[in-house]
């Protein structure tokens, strides 16, 4: 276990001070010394860099606090059932999203700026390395805070999608009836036409015959009461067919949804990787360009040789 000997150190400092006084050794310590220390601190290059870096960090910290503060309300799905206190409307959420995005953009711009300036006027390799590492840390911090934000948002988007899906399921019977009424409306017009052209097709008559009982069931005012059992059966079959079609469509849509989610995740991974590789590819590009030039020069040199 480590032992804290800081107090021991301070005690040694006192001892040395008193000893030096006793010996009359001139030393920078003592009362003057402390003032000297204060003076010495201020003209020391405080470093533009580090104060600005700290500023950026405090900004990011504010963003993080802001996000964390409103996180609970943001995520809360049942806000419409809760009391006024915990409610957050969608507009408020959008506002938060927008603000957060602007903030993140400014922060990353600030980091880029710092990066560009960090290497000016500095000749020491160690300081350069140190500053690069510091900027890496800050970027990493920003990324982590952004993750907070994107997690929140992903939850929200997912909720919305789920809600929409749920809300789609309810009016299904309505949509079916609506569809049948629309089909009946569609078939009404050809039936009207067929009245004018009775000899053309049997089909419109059939449609007429089909729609009429439907009209009848809906009480549309046509008042025809013919509903033969075969026709009922046919209607049933058609209904079933339509239901089956809708179901399979619905399944496919769900599958596609799932796949799209996966693909978006993949895309995220890929973009990350591509961005990572961008820098490498740039450097490779440079190297290759340099290499081709070297080879060109080499070839020229070789060509000159026989002429010597």
């Amino acid at each position, binding site marked *: 276990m480590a032992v*804290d000997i800081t107090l021991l*150190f301070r005690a*040694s400092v006192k001892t*040395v001070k008193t000893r030096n006084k006793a010996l009359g050794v001139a030393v920078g310590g003592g009362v003057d010394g402390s003032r000297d220390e204060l003076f010495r601190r201020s003209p020391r290059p405080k470093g533009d860099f*580090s104060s600005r870096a700290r500023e950026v960090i405090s900004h990011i910290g504010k963003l993080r606090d802001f996000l964390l503060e409103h996180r609970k309300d943001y995520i809360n799905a049942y806000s419409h059932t809760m009391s006024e206190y915990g409610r957050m409307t969608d507009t408020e959420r959008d506002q938060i999203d927008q603000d957060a995005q602007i903030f993140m953009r400014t922060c990353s711009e600030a980091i880029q700026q710092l990066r560009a300036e960090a290497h000016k006027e500095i000749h020491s390799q160690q300081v350069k390395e140190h500053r690069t590492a510091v900027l890496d840390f800050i970027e990493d911090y920003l990324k982590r805070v952004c993750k*907070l934000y994107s997690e929140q948002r992903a939850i929200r988007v997912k909720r919305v999608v789920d809600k929409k899906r749920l809300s789609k399921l309810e009016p299904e019977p309505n949509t079916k009836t609506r569809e049948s009424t629309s089909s009946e409306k569609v078939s009404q017009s050809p039936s009207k036409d067929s009245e004018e052209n009775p000899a053309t097709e049997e089909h419109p008559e059939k449609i007429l015959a089909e729609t009429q009982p439907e009209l009848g069931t809906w009480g549309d005012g046509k008042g025809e009461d013919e509903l033969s059992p075969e026709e009922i059966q046919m209607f049933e079959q058609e209904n079933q067919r339509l239901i089956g079609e809708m179901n399979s469509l619905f399944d496919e849509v769900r*599958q596609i949804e799932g796949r799209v989610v996966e693909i978006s*995740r993949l895309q995220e991974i*890929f973009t990350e990787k591509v961005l990572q590789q961008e820098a490498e590819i740039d450097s490779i590009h440079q190297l290759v360009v340099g290499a081709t030039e070297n080879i060109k020069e080499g070839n020229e040199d070789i060509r000159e040789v026989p002429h010597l």
Partner: protein
Amino acid sequence: MASAAAATAAAAAVAASIRERQTVALKRMLNFNVPHIKNSTGEPVWKVLIYDRFGQDIISPLLSVKELRDMGITLHLLLHSDRDPIPDVPAVYFVMPTEENIDRMCQDLRNQLYESYYLNFISAISRSKLEDIANAALAASAVTQVAKVFDQYLNFITLEDDMFVLCNQNKELVSYRAINRPDITDTEMETVMDTIVDSLFCFFVTLGAVPIIRCSRGTAAEMVAVKLDKKLRENLRDARNSLFTGDTLGAGQFSFQRPLLVLVDRNIDLATPLHHTWTYQALVHDVLDFHLNRVNLEESSGVENSPAGARPKRKNKKSYDLTPVDKFWQKHKGSPFPEVAESVQQELESYRAQEDEVKRLKSIMGLEGEDEGAISMLSDNTAKLTSAVSSLPELLEKKRLIDLHTNVATAVLEHIKARKLDVYFEYEEKIMSKTTLDKSLLDIISDPDAGTPEDKMRLFLIYYISTQQAPSEADLEQYKKALTDAGCNLNPLQYIKQWKAFTKMASAPASYGSTTTKPMGLLSRVMNTGSQFVMEGVKNLVLKQQNLPVTRILDNLMEMKSNPETDDYRYFDPKMLRGNDSSVPRNKNPFQEAIVFVVGGGNYIEYQNLVDYIKGKQGKHILYGCSELFNATQFIKQVKYIPLLFVAIGIFQKRERKPLTHLNQLQPKPSSYTKIRCCHGRLRKP
């Protein structure tokens, strides 16, 4: 109830690996001496780490550069290098409190290199040196900048969860040769002993336990035991500053089980350092350049068919770190080599299968739009693709490890084949277990194909050490001639002769157990699967568990077995009020925890033997430590240069110390320690 739970928790706590403890201590130090908690949205703090070579050796097996980065360290620099001032940055120092280091630190303070200073000393700093720093800080008006000063008590290097060495930088100081040379002076011996004891003390402070110490009589180990006991006792008595009380000890305070420290001297068993080995880690250490968990390989680049006069073959140097994260290494470092080769092959095959799986997905993706039927498969495959892509980093890491081990194992295999190490290993096992030998020793020594001269020397030395009766003069001459013909230097033999003469006085020389190795046949699965590890002609030997002398001693002491070899070991208990040694152990129960420390040097063969021994015992833990780690080559080198002892054992007078100007001066001046040191057994009472 509570106490029982606490006791088990405490037992587990003490058993927590030494590596974990040291890593935790280091991380806390790097976190400005405040316990480190991971916080995913914490603000970054940055700092600079300054260490000396000692600190470097301690940190490098435990924390990688990436982990240092995660702790916020932007730069890590050597103390004695050119360092530029970096404004506004706290600096963490991790150094030994030596004169040079203190001077350099004072210089740093004067030059105002950093904003604040966190000073951490690897072992305790003396009051006077602390005042030197205080002086410099005052002169530089930097007293408030020195934020914290700590004594870390981390003066040892942990290599494995259960293995540690004392130091690497100044290992000549505490080497086997340093301890056993006859021309050593009293003061030098004191220094050596103090160094060893300091490190052991730091070790127990970090472990958080006060051990019960047992050691053999009349050896350097005894001296270490006496000093360590004294130091622990002093520290325990000093209630105010004791390092073993209060929250530092933690749960260990409730432990009813204290660990056992067994201090042995290298001289009880000189055959093991010379032994050829067959397990992976020990082989890597023996045959390749393996140092602080890093192995350095020289690879020759492929044959270049360049015209005459063109560039010679270039050798690439590659180094690999064998870390605890490397699952293959953790699983197989104690396995016999053929098993390792097989496992690498298996890993490679499973990796290839996974790679093919990912590639197959790619081709299925390409079918989209061409085949309607494939679309229904797609929905699964999209998910598969995601999981494949997200598992890519893992796959790449696996590939890297497989490459690493393929290279290392291939290098080892080359050595085995070139030097016929399997033959040596088998033969030595037979010698050490006293079974009948099918080939004559002389044959092997004279065989020009088998092994380097050093291998032959090792074999012969083991034979010489293990035989009950010394070979006759004529035989010896024959052997000597054969060895010289093979190109060996005979100095080590002289030393071993002397050593053997001393040990003769003791009880029967260490016997190595009585089991054999069984060759499993030349044709193995490895050959049949056409692997790249063509082990043709290499015997597939199976190791049978046999206990080396050190393991046997441990077994006796830990299980409280009675055995003439260990019965008269001294007993020290620093916690007992009456501070004199009694040979009667107070504790009658077997120990659950033990630490074996070899004064004079150890190696991986012993370590592996202990690990194998304790595997069979439930709930028991062993830690292995030594003052330095050497392989056979290094050991022989040390032994070669120990000036010959003069033969007269009976001279124990204390003479005037005169510094030896030339090592070859064979005017032996036995120190008062000769009594204890040179006799590797019981003192003959006059």
